[in-house]
């Protein structure tokens, strides 16, 4: 794999290296290893999803996407994302506003707490809701008397999903809004705009790409979450199976091709996420470059790391 790739690179131009660049051979070797590693570890798994999905032909592929249980799983996944993503978006905006625009004691702690869900194992994220809402949990018996089911039902799945996707939007907005500073907003207020007007017409337009990026990542994870959801779902076919859980059930039940057919949908979602990410980075770079040439705009770069 690596050999075939770096051969095509042979004709690259040789620049003066001034002793600060590796020799062409080392460079070719490193690029070859990079291609080989990415080929085996990233490209092959990606191609394999589609190859496995089509193992039984296109007809079987289409057929396994429209079975009632799979359709129910797709509906549940969409519902869960439709609830949890907007909630985390509102949270992210509120958290970014309070952190990037005001000084108060305990701010570093608050930032750490917002990031906390990323350090907690998804399985533990599911477990904590079982302990609060499960039958053996703190609120379980009280809820049971009132016939409210959280665990092994949709509310539990939504809660677990909100937990694991909570930091995404806030993480994108906080560094950007801190870098931008509050001068434009203060100017708008001085000119007589109300707080909401300032937010809608000054703050939101200047962070829209970072907000969109955070929402895309949040949505991608919300639809794909497995561990946390698996713990609270109860795996009731047709009722509490999300798409990833449906995939697992099919795979474990020796319906590999069907499992991979449903998996193609999530893989396509991942690819669209990557495409949008690349596009948004390019946009932001362009905005950044034009901001540097026009004097009235201040620095608006943001790191777009995962």
């Amino acid at each position: 794999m690596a050999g075939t790739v770096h051969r095509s690179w042979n004709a690259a131009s040789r620049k003066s290296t001034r002793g600060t660049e590796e020799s062409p051979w080392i460079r070719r070797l490193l690029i070859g290893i990079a291609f080989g590693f990415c080929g085996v570890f990233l490209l092959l798994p990606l191609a394999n999803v589609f190859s496995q999905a089509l193992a039984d032909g296109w007809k079987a592929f289409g057929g396994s996407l429209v079975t009632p249980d799979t359709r129910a799983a797709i509906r549940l996944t969409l519902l869960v994302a439709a609830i949890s993503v907007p909630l985390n978006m509102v949270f992210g905006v509120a958290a970014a506003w309070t952190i990037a625009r005001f000084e108060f004691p305990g701010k570093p702690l608050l930032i750490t707490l917002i990031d906390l869900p990323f350090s907690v194992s998804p399985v533990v994220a599911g477990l904590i809701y079982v302990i609060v809402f499960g039958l053996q949990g703190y609120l379980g018996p009280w809820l049971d008397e009132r016939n409210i089911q959280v665990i092994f039902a949709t509310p539990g799945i939504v809660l677990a999903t909100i937990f694991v996707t909570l930091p995404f939007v806030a993480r994108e907005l906080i560094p950007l809004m801190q870098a931008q500073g509050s001068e434009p907003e203060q100017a708008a207020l001085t000119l007589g705009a109300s707080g909401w007007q300032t937010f809608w017409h000054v703050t939101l337009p200047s962070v829209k790409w970072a907000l969109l990026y955070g929402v895309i990542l949040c949505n991608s994870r919300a639809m794909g979450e497995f561990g946390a959801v698996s713990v609270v779902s109860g795996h009731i076919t047709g009722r509490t199976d999300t798409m990833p859980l449906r995939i697992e059930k099919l795979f474990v039940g020796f319906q590999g091709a069907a499992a991979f057919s449903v998996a193609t949908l999530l893989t396509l979602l991942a690819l669209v996420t990557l495409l949008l990410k690349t596009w948004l980075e390019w946009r932001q770079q362009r905005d950044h470059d034009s901001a540097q040439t026009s004097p009235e705009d201040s620095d608006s770069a943001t790191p777009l790391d995962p």
Partner: protein
Amino acid sequence: MLNRKHNPLPGFGLTLGFTLFYLSVIVLIPLGALILRASEISPSDFWALATKERSLAALRLTFGASFIAAALNAVFGTLLAWVLTRYEFFGRRLLDALVDFPFALPTAVAGMTLATLFAPEGWLGQFLVPLGIHGAYSKLGVVIALTFTGLPFMVRTLQPVIENIEREVEEAAATLGAGRGMTFRRVIAPMLLPSILTGFALSFGRAIGEYGSVVFISGGLTSTEIAPYLIVMRLEEYDYPGAMALAVILLVVSFVLLAIINSLERWVSRFER
């Protein structure tokens, strides 16, 4: 940046209040409930639960496989970050975008596709299994899945740091007679080290909690049980103390790692202008 005494911006009370309320309901109270419940287990019972042979084996595999995966990512992730930032070549943008693929791909799909790739009849397994390399349903499989999911953390931590290295420093080393290898060892590597450690810790932290990708490639064998998997097994047996003991251990390790990463990042920021 914002050291004004009288901040005229509105909404402080509303947004701080909402942020704290939301964090409390979603994160703090449920996590507190776990810790409260777990504290009802007496220390000797807790010790017994945590040091059961099966728990110990799962913890050993979790930490061991995570360490190897993070080390592999430190090597290949550094190489990838270097190649992607320093070299111009055909396909660079594609590789750069692909690096985020493990981050974007749902873990269940990742586990499934890796398991079939390395299974005896899979694209890679058909060559590797005759050589005695079992990449699926084995401990090696656990390492493979954890390496896959941890890779973006390493590369994305290093890329901005490599970009910010001043070429003048390397030129100075070269002018003073250092070969490229020496410049790398004595000048570049020390500058990258804190970030490599940060990436290692991020990748390791991600790996110890990972469940979805591993569960498929480990094949549910006793020898390939990781701690998160054992937590799920305990829960399915309604053995809550057993599940909570392991969960608390994972939580404590995650929090320690978080503290380490925070101080590493402070160290890294000293290198930046």
